[in-house]
């Protein structure tokens, strides 16, 4: 029997009337990587926040090395050598890596930044990180920031490391590097708890898996004795087909012809250079790339929200049969022509929806101009809201609930549902399944497929390569604002796309 490093017994936590965790019992051993698996809203993060002192459990006990402890604040958690790496990095942008790492520490030997910098370097070398302790956070890449987070908890001598969806923002290569580091830490005697909803990562990395579903503890299995299907079943309660349906594209005609567009952002950085592609009706065009490779700018350019320095975006209007250059149009004209953008940013609410307004009002953001009188007509948007709620299974008390109070996944359903409802000819969906659980993701995939069958040119920007490969017909890969490759989604491999995603960057670094 392995030695338990941390044990949770009957932990319960509620927020108002919402039960986030109910009677959860989980044990993590020394020298072990434990995965906590669950859909969105299953209470994984809440549970871990209770171990790290951000929240306090309503009921239940926590044992560390066999002794019962009370963790009331992050400080208490440090005391018990628990370190958490949050999904959203908790770093101060204008501080250096070292300053962030020593933040909150009370050393007896006083404040000595130079010594801290040295110690950070040592830790980096020991576990195989590459890090510059004196670099400012705002100059760092996502993966570097994560490294700072991990070193921060190691610096404090943490024995139990909790990582909340650590791979969500990493490229496949970076993920492999992280996993290697985690394995090295495990062999060094640490306990690693990793929160995730990516099954293949669970299987490749962890020793055991604990599954949560809707806040309840379902069970723990050894990774070696399970497989994807069994885990999915535990996670969702019913078997979800892992295959996304994909029809052969029919009656394809060129709908959108993007020619040599260039875009320079406000900081003077070239974010798009010489991007050319064609989106055809009845086809799903995937756009792959590491976050921030120009996906956002590209879609915004098509929607008329981004100024281009040159190039053209030719749009073939199916109603009139005429070809028009979208660069000369205002965003509203482009929208009225049927080009629709639904962009789900990292914080999910940042673009497209107003958090404090209810679902009906958010529907009206797109349709208020249709009213004939000076007063708002609420009937049509209300019907639309009700339809989206029932068709997409949006979990909400009613259509008059502020969007802010819905969970992330439900917010996204509202956003995507509204754009689809406008019967577009070009539908651009950026990260529509970002952070969604499997069931909701499939609902979105089906919606996109339905649009494809209707002859819409769908452009899908995604981060999960598996999904891109299964959902799309054609994939263009963006890397640092350039198209580094166009592949057929039916025949390509994940490795090929992953390589294309990082290819030209490496070339630039070598130059």
């Amino acid at each position, binding site marked *: 029997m392995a030695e338990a490093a941390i044990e949770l017994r009957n932990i319960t936590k509620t*927020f108002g009337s919402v039960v986030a965790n109910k009677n959860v019992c989980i044990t993590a051993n020394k020298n072990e990587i434990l995965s906590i698996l669950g859909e969105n809203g299953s209470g994984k993060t809440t549970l871990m926040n209770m171990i*790290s002192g*951000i*929240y306090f459990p309503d009921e239940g006990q926590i044992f560390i090395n066999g002794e019962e402890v009370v963790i009331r*604040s*992050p*400080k208490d958690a*440090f005391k018990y050598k628990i370190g*958490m790496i*949050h999904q959203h990095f*908790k*770093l*101060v*942008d*204008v*501080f250096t890596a070292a*300053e*962030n790492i*020593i*933040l*909150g*520490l*009370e*050393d007896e030997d006083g*404040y000595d930044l130079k010594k801290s910098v040295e110690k950070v370097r040592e830790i980096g070398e020991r576990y195989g990180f590459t890090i510059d302790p004196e670099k*400012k956070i*705002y100059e760092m890449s996502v993966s570097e920031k994560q490294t700072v987070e991990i070193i921060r908890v190691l610096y404090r001598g943490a024995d139990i490391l909790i990582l909340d969806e650590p791979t969500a923002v990493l490229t496949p290569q970076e993920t492999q590097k992280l996993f290697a580091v985690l394995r090295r830490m495990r062999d060094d005697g640490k306990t690693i708890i990793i929160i995730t909803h990516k099954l293949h990562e669970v299987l490749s990395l962890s020793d055991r898996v604990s599954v949560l579903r809707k806040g309840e503890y379902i069970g723990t299995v050894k990774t070696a004795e399970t497989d994807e299907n069994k885990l999915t079943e535990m996670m969702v309660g019913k078997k979800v087909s892992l295959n996304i349906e994909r029809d052969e594209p029919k009656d394809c005609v060129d709908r959108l012809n993007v020619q040599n567009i260039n875009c320079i952002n406000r*900081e003077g950085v070239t974010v798009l250079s010489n991007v050319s592609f064609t989106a055809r009706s009845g086809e799903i065009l995937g756009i792959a790339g590491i976050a921030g490779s120009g996906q956002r700018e590209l879609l915004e350019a098509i929607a008329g929200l981004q100024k281009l320095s040159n190039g053209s975006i030719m749009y073939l209007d199916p109603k009139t049969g005429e070809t028009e250059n979208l660069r000369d149009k205002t965003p509203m004209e482009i929208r009225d022509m049927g080009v629709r953008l639904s962009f789900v940013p990292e914080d999910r609410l940042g673009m497209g929806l107003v958090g404090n307004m209810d679902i009906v009002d958010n529907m009206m953001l797109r349709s208020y101009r249709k009213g004939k009188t000076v007063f708002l007509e609420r009937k049509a948007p209300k019907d639309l809201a009700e339809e989206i709620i029932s068709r997409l299974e949006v979990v909400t008390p009613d259509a008059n609930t502020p969007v802010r109070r819905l969970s992330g996944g439900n917010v996204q359903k509202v956003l995507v549902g509204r754009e689809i409802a406008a019967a577009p000819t070009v539908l651009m969906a950026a990260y529509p399944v970002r952070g969604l659980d499997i069931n909701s993701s499939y609902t979105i995939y089906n919606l996109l497929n339905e649009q494809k069958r209707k002859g819409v040119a769908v452009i899908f920007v995604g981060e999960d390569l598996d999904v891109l490969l299964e959902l799309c017909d054609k994939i263009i890969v963006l890397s640092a604002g350039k198209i580094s490759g166009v592949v057929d989604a039916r025949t390509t491999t994940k490795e090929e796309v992953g390589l294309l995603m990082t290819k030209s960057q490496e070339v630039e670094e070598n130059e």
Partner: protein
Amino acid sequence: MFATIINKAIVQGIPLLYGSTGEIITEKSGNLNLGIPGIMYMGGIAGVMGAYFYEKSVAVPSPVWCIIIPLIASLIGSALLALIYSFLTISLRANQNVTGLALTTFGVGFGDFFGGSLTKIFGEGGNLSVKVTADYYKTTLPFADDLGAFGKIFFSYGFLVYLAIIIALISAWVLKKTRVGLHLRAVGENPATADAAGINVTKYKYLATVIGGAIAGLGGFYFIMDYTGGSWTNGGFGDRGWLAIALVIFALWKPNLGIIGSVIFGGLYIAYAYISGLSRSASAIFNMLPYVVTILVLIITSIRSKKENQPPASLGLAYFREER
């Protein structure tokens, strides 16, 4: 002539320096305290009241108590106002702008009420004046007059001037070089991060706001005790409180830059007096100069957009740990 201008600029700048140092410390904790003008007013009137009651209560005021009692009264008065601000914005999470503006209105009203009526309440009439106390505060170093221009620029002030500069330098050092400073800056930049790192965000916010308020209050106190020589005039403090807040921006949230900035602002503030033939309206335009300079600084720093020169990232936002 030159020495006189510098001397006048410094004298004008000191209230602003106290105010801006206090506000910088406050803002570094993420609290945008627009109550500073009111707090500075409060620091002035509380000090005057302390001095007035002490002078009334004894036949021959002793120099030591004349210094200590008004100083403590001033610190308590402004700290109390800052404490009200802290309680409203930190514990009750009220809107910082609204709370601050309300406190400014309150502080100015409080000052004008007691400043204008204290002597009447005690049946004496006449202006509120604490000349005996003020004379102690105005005491300069004895050898200042012997050193000519040099002495005039550097040694011809009461001790509150030096205290302002020392406090600014210490604040700069604490913010930049100590763990407390690092933690305070973290609270103002990203309270969630600071919280997760085990820093007591509420404690830091309270302490920074109250200490900052007390320091800012000394600006009003200096103005009454030293600059005007102990006689209170309603509205005499003018818009110096707002200038102090403008100086925070001008100094890029660095107390040591605030020292230089305060002299520049002070100089600009009195520039009209040294240009002959100005009409009243033209001199009013000159009074705008510090604000114009502040806007220029804002434009330049915004264009350069260097992260270090921006206000604390979470300035003006309330922090609540379990917000979802």
